[in-house]
Structures are given as C-alpha cells and as structure tokens.
C-alpha cells in the first residue's frame, strides 16, 4: 500500500496508547471505506511512533487518532514532533474520542490539544459524517 502515485488522499487511522476500545475504530473504518477514502488502520493499542512511521511509509495526508480511555493528553504530548522528525511537517492530525478523563468544557479540551499541534479535536460523541466533511475541506485546503 502506498500513498504515492494517486490523486486520492491517504489516511492513517488507529487507537493510541494502551487502549483496546475497538468499536468506534471499526465504525470509522467502515465509514471511511464507504466515503471512498484510502487508508490503513493500525487498530487498537497503537503507539504514537506507530502512527508517525505508518504515515511516512504510506505517504499519508492525514492521521486520525482515536483515544477512548482518557489517556490522550499523555500519549499525544509530543505527537506533532514525531511527524516533524520524519519530515511530515504538513500532515493533518485529528484526535477524537473520550480524550480526557472526567468531563471538561469542550473549549478547554480543544485548547489543550490544539496546543499540542493537533488540527481538529472531536471530544465525546462525534458525528463521523461531520468529521469526514471537515476532513475533505482540510485536505482540499492543503492541496492548494
């Protein structure tokens, strides 16, 4: 699989950290397939470096990181750097799921992860249809 030699965007998706929550990941996989995206799914229990390495290997345009156990602040603390180190300066990074423990105001959660270099944050129940429209927009913006 490779992102080279195609006009269509290539994505990497997966669930970060020691996190076995699989259902949302599979639902996302089904929806991306249905929406015609090319992607690789790292599945559950994927380390931050796995996302960066995979993105490099398949020449990904965007990375969609899931986190369901509330540990995202820990696992994403250096995430933008990992991609930069591999020369992927312009890659789009989304984070979604139960990204913090307890309940926090959305604005606070968004600010936290945007500060870590994440482009869009989907906290709590997420409409994947909306997320996919945003992704198309961001990918188009990036192409020009």
């Amino acid at each position, binding site marked *: 699989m490779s992102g080279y030699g195609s006009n269509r965007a290539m994505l990497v998706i997966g669930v970060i950290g020691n996190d*076995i929550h*699989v*259902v949302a990941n*599979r*639902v996302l*996989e*089904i*929806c991306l397939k*249905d929406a015609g995206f090319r992607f690789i799914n790292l*599945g*559950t*229990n994927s380390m931050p470096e796995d996302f960066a390495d995979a993105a490099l290997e398949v020449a990904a345009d965007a990375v969609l990181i899931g986190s369901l156990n509330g540990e995202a602040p820990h696992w994403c603390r250096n995430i933008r750097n990992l991609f930069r180190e591999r020369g992927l300066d312009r890659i789009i990074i989304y984070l979604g799921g139960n990204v913090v423990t307890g309940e926090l105001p959305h604005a606070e959660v968004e600010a936290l992860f945007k500060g870590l270099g994440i482009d869009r944050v989907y906290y709590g129940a997420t*409409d*994947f*249809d909306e997320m996919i429209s945003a992704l198309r927009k961001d990918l188009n913006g990036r192409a020009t």
Partner: protein
Amino acid sequence: MGAPRSDLDLEAIGKLRARLLGTAPTDPPELGSAVEYLANLSDAVFASVTLAKPRSRPLIQPRGGFARFQDQRALTLTLARAGADFIPLTIDSHTRHNDYETAAVLLERSELEDKNFLNGYPLVNHGYKLSRKLYQGVGKPISLRHGTPDARLLVEVALATGITEIEGGALTYTLPYTRGYPLARSLMNWQYCDRLCAMLSAPKRPIHRESFGVLTATLVPPVTVAVVEVCELLLAAEQGVRSFAVSFAQTGSITQDLALAGVLREATHDYLARFGFRDVSVHLVYHQWMGAFPREYVRAAALIATSAQIAALIGADKVVTKTKEEARGIPHPDSNAEAVAMVRYVLEHLPLPAAPIGGKEVEIEASRIRRELDMIMDAIFDLPTEEFWRSVALAFERGIIDVPFAPHEGNLNAVLTLRGRGNGIYITDPGRMPLTGDVLEEEKAALAERRKERPEETLFASLMHDIELMMR
C-alpha cells in the same frame, strides 16, 4: 479435507501436564489432585449432571469475580442464597493474559489497601488449596468464566479446585479478547484444555465445557455465531468432551433469537452425527443483552426481565444474567443477587410453553440461517488441510470466519451487517464468507424494510443506531 475425527488417538498428555503444573506460582497441583478431589464431590456440584436433569425453566447463572478470597467467598454465598443455580468464578484480565506476576502484585495491593485492583479472581495466584474453600457447603456447580487464549494452567487449577464447568474455546476466547494471539496456538491450547476435561471426566459425570458464542456482541450475524459454535463443539468432541454447551447473546430480535436457538439445537445434533460423535450431550445457553447497556436502572431492569422471558421462550437450558449496574462497571454483590432474584421471579411465574414457540417468520429466518451455516461449514471442510483444527485456522485467515468488531488483527473485517426486519441483524456485505444466491437476496430483503423506514440515514447513523439499540 480436514474433517473432524472421532477416532483420534487420545494419547496421554501426562508429561506435558507435569511440566505445566510445576509452573503454577502457588500450590502446584499434583497430576492426581483434580481426579481425586472431583471423585469425592457430590453429583450436585457437577454442571453436566445438573444440565442433564429435566427442568421446567432455564437454569440461572450470574457473573462475578473479585480479587480477594473473602470477597469472592461472600459473593458466592450471596449468589447462592439469591437462587443462582450455577455459581460463577470470573477471572481477572491479567490472569487471562497469563501475567501471573502482575496479578500477584495487584492482589497484594488489593489486600493491603482493602480495595479491588483486579477485575476478577486471580485463581492461579490464589491456588487450588485455598480456592476449594470458596465452595465449602455451597453444593452447586461452579463455572469458570474468563477469556483466555492459553488457559491450560488456569483450567488445571480450576479442575483441582473442583470447578466442573469450563467456559471458553479457541475462537471465542481469542478473536474477541486479544489483538494478536495467534489462532493456531490458541487452537492447540484449547485442544489441551478439552482433552484435559475429557480425561478428568467420570463416565456419568463428565466435566462440562461451554462455548462463548457471544463473540463481540456487536452486530454479529446469526450465521457467524452458528459457524463458530459448531466448530468449537466439533473441536471439543474430537478431544473426547462429552458434555458441551453452545451459546449466544440476545440479538435484539425475538424472531432471530428463536430461529438461532432452533438452528443451533438441530445443527449441533446433525454435525455430531455426520462425523460419528456419539454420546455428546449438547446444551443451549442464552446470554442476556451483551451489547451497549442502558445506564438508567429502570431500563436495565426492564431489559433483564424481558430477556429472562426470552430465554424461556427459546428453550435455553441456562441463562447468563446481567445486572442493572452493567453500564457502570463491576456490580455490587447485592445488585448481582437482585438480578438473579428478578430473573428467577420471571422464570418461575411465567413457565415454559409445552411446545416451542414458532411461526412462519421464525421458520423463514431459521431456514436461511441453516442454509448459510451449511454453506460455510462445507467450505471449511473443503479447505486443503489434513486436520479439522487447521481448517478452522485457515478459515479465519481467509475471512471465511470473519467476526464483526473483533479486535484481533487477523480478522478480515470485510463483513458488514446492519439491523433490518424486527431489529434482527442482517448481512449487507458478506465479505469472503462463501454465501451465494438466495440467502443473500433474503438478507437484502430483510434490510430493505428498514431502508424504506429511514431512507435518509447515512451509514454512520445506521451503525450507531444499531450498535446502541438498547440505549435509545
């Protein structure tokens, strides 16, 4: 063709056993510990004996496991008093992954801080000598509930403890529970477990094995459940198991529950006969709703009570209960006892009909599931291997067995299902399941009714609706 064989040479696994038993961290059992202990137990504690008796209602089994001995003992007594027919011993997740060291650390911490740091009872760490005391004076069969791809040592210790029902199987305890445990290894480990159960079985009171047809409890189509259950039954029968239960979880459609129960009853009988297995008793276990559970107590209780009634309607031999705390975590023993009492109340006051409940819709559904099951089983038997267990491994590799939402990285994830007619689970894309012709048309027709009702719904909205069916 790797057909199941009833003439396998059940050579002694003594040497392997001795080595394995020596690795137990606490009170390594002797080769004869289990046999000797089991021989002196009363008939009443044998699951196979209890299941073989005629009865007017499904038997009741809750779930439950705590880290510390005294908590597990208290839970056991509470559940027995509440009217549970089977007493569960649910094992913690570190033991399930053979990580006895972490289990030991967290057990010690639980004891020091007077708080549960494990989500079940670490049986291997407690050892059989202490664990036998859990069941003094209880007089009911104990069921081992876990989720372990390599359960060899755990089953050894369980049998030495006097536990007479062992849940699990290579497919059902690997695909939903692990990300990458190789299925071929799990198949070999479970051959050991099955054979051990067979070896320690007395003719009139065999050790009972039970499969876990629940799988991921997330939009798993009935045929996938049926295929997996028939495979695990045949794998166990090959190793000499004489008392076995197939199981499935409430689907969300009473029609489909009735149909699947009927198919499982008939097909297990047919496939055993086809391969020359005689004298295997097969039972049917129904799991109350295993999907996303409502948080509201009133809704949870309604679901539990209704599901108890369905267990009776489908003629289940045993029902595995949920509690109103399901959405919130591990239930308090009192809440668990309350659920047992609630289910018992329903079952005792609304007894089984004399004849199975059916009707045309159930027949249509059952006929399709059975044809699908036979197509897939034929494809598995036709795979180019010499042994049945290898065919099962290859079938998984090729996506012939493909379990929706299984976390296992070897799972193909090509099957797509949605809810259709009467909230039943139907196949929109069979992936590489070898289903052809009429059955796929019938699946589509059952889905068309739903599309008519909700024409604008996106795939995402449909999936979320269907997964969260009971939370809406």
